């Protein structure tokens, strides 16, 4: 499946400044692993050491938060838009 991944400001330098990249995969996890292979600077920002979605990142498949779907196992279809947004948080 070929999808568009939209990156937040903070991660764009790791992808050569791109706000949006095309990627392949059957699931969001596949897509992210492919992206990390291509842009090693993204490692640790999308997926944590345990292979789970990073705590401080929100990921949406076409505006649905994947935490309410199948997390990184969420299947993707051709033309899906995966949006990555940092968590907006503080104290």
């Amino acid at each position: 499946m070929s999808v568009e991944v939209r990156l937040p400001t903070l991660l764009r330098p790791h992808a050569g400044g791109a706000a949006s990249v095309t990627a392949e995969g059957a699931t969001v996890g596949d897509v992210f692993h492919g992206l990390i292979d291509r842009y090693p600077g993204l490692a640790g920002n999308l997926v944590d050491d345990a292979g789970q979605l990073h705590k401080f990142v929100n990921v949406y498949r076409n505006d649905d938060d994947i935490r309410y779907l199948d997390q990184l196992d969420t299947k993707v279809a051709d033309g899906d838009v995966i949006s990555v947004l940092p968590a907006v948080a503080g104290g």
Partner: protein
Amino acid sequence: MPGPDTEFTDPVLVLSGAQYRTIVAHCYDGLPDEACGLLAGPVGADGEPTGAVTAVYPCTNADASARTYTVDSRDLIRAMRDAESRQEDLVAVFHSHTHSDAYPSDTDVRQAMEPHWLYVLVSLRHAEPVLRTYRIRDGRVAECEVVVADS
């Protein structure tokens, strides 16, 4: 209040009276927890907000805590798409400090992930609310002026 020799950094945040009241009311409504929300407005070619605000989005604090906040992820995407529909961006997050001053905490500074945004703090510790605005970049805090236009 900042004195005449206090240096503010760009931009000036401009709120209408109605926007100010919406923000403050949402903060009081959230008690005893911290409340949070987002602001949208125009950005320049450099990605920097102009300081104008076209929409206020009161959001759910997913932490439901008096000490921390996290903007609910569904509120975040909804607000972002709404701003994009007007060729605008999210430009700020506001949140309340229930018992401390309107200044970014260490947690606020550590978790500020948007270098282009304004960070609006509303303190509810005194009889009257205090709203102040900051840039948080590279771990450093710089205050921005806030103007509340007459409504």
